[in-house]
């Protein structure tokens, strides 16, 4: 479940950065159209691909439930962190992305 959580959190952060408002708040610049598209695709992919490890570890029934749970709560975590600790929110996403190969290795 950890790796699915990390991927979902990073995915939502990417989707969040793909909006003008949040990109401006977090990185103090407007995203170029290419960058916006890239972030959106990356975010969507991360969210979808997170199904993989969840189902791999726990089977379809429980895996999908776990995926839904981490999907919802990673978004909630991100939204609650953004106004209070924006830097931490970004750092977490980065750390999550870096740590997810390690977590993936652990379940193989």
């Amino acid at each position, binding site marked *: 479940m950890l790796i699915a959580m990390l991927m979902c959190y990073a995915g939502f952060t990417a989707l969040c950065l793909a909006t003008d408002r949040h990109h401006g708040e977090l990185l103090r610049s407007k995203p170029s159209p290419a960058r916006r598209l890239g972030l959106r695709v990356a975010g969507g992919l991360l969210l979808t691909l997170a199904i993989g490890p969840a189902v791999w570890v726990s089977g379809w029934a429980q895996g999908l439930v*776990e995926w839904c749970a981490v999907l919802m709560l990673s978004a*909630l975590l991100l*939204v609650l962190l953004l*106004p209070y600790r924006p830097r931490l929110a970004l750092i977490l996403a980065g750390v999550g992305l870096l740590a997810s190969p390690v977590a993936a290795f652990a379940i193989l």
Partner: protein
Amino acid sequence: MREGFRQAMAWLHTWAGLIFGWLLFAIFLTGTLAYFKEEISHWMQPEVQTHPVDDVRSLNVAQQYLQANAPTAARWFINLPDAREPGLSVMWQDKVDPGQRGNFMRKTLDPVSGLAVQARESMGGEFFYRFHFQLQMPYPWGRWLSTLAAMVMFVALITGIITHKKIFKDFFTFRPRKGQRSWLDGHNAVGVLVLPFHLMITYSSLVIFMSMVMPAPILAAYGNDTQAFFSDVFPATDNAPALGQPGRLLPLASMYQQARAQWAGGHVERVAVNNPSDVNASVNVFRAGSDSVVHDFGSTVSFSGTTGELLRVSGEPSLPAVVGGSFYGLHMGRFAGPVLRWLYFICGLAGTAMIGTGLVIWLGKRQLKHAKAHVMPFELRLVEVLNIASMSGLLIAIAAFFWANRLLPVSFAERSGWEVQTFFIAWGLSLLHASVRRGRRGWVEQLSVAALLFMAIPVINALTTSHHLGVALASGDWAMAGFDLTCLACGVFFAWAARKMQRRGVPAPKAERARPLTLKREAH
């Protein structure tokens, strides 16, 4: 036309949410607590000791105990302990003439020593579980009312989605410290981000209730209501009748092993023995509900008690049973391990928060109009009192329930009933308090009391039992330690909330005044 439709939906959302909001808040919060029903029960009955789970040993202990204490009973029921429920519970029904029902006896045994545990009388977490759909009302009414509340909740969710104009644009938006704006942001955030859970929990409750209000056999509906439970779930016709000749019951452990082999290692929750002393004894082994997401109501393996012959294996459930069972399973979350259980719990809290913020917004928006006048119209004052009592008052009531569990003497008559009484007395007092104190002060005082009560729970646990935090942590009793720590964390959170409320008590800055116009356009 489109705007007209949206306005109509907004109206429905506003009023359906208000009228049922207070009740739904209580249902959601107690239902959320019910995810930790077994852990709460464990804390409330600390006399039941935790041992490493060993089903074969537990079964042997139970069989010996029943053989010694109830050899002539009509039926035995053995509920095996698991990681969450440490006690081995046995129940038996006296033999009586045909056409009559024998009395039920229930004992909790220590799965190692085999002695009956003298645990304090308490409903434990079962109280929250029962309350969240029976509302402490006589039989059909509580269920009807909570079904109605679930339907209104569903309506409120759907109309809420329609009313919310910018789901995707505002998906990641939460702007704190901006008064009404922040409440609305928070309401939208917990509503939208956790929407799949809200829809699942509300819709599945309707699916569950559909058969509950039409009294059909559903396992969760019973628990304490043993009579209905047994006649429905263990139809007597299914098993061979007693022949009247004495027989010797084989060890149940071997049947347990065979049943598990049938389920490819699945777990056993309950073993029932019919006519244990008869030559025609039969044994039904029931599979644990925690084994799969899809709840299977009748997964059993039956044996002859004297020959050990396998009589019947229940077939695969039908498709409607799988659909119904999956809603049931998802709602109850019994399959969830510790991590997923906590995630369920957080989702439930998010739902509670959504309802709470909605109630606050309703009042806040209308209060702005009367900000200058010192007297509030009666209806707004009524909503305010009910808001305070239904939210912070409920927190106090829950804390009082736990306090009563520790402070009422163990030998007190009707002890378990008095715990429940304390809950409602505390709730009633908080309603009284809310009606005599002015709004913000009422909030601050009640939240402070709740904070103190919750923070003190680990302390009274340490003073009244030998299971304080240090002992629980050292012995790895995570349910006990987790309960104390969660109470402490809740207390700290309520203290923070009370402080925050008090600070906002100073007159609102001008900027906040200018906002209502834009706010109204968006929220309404």
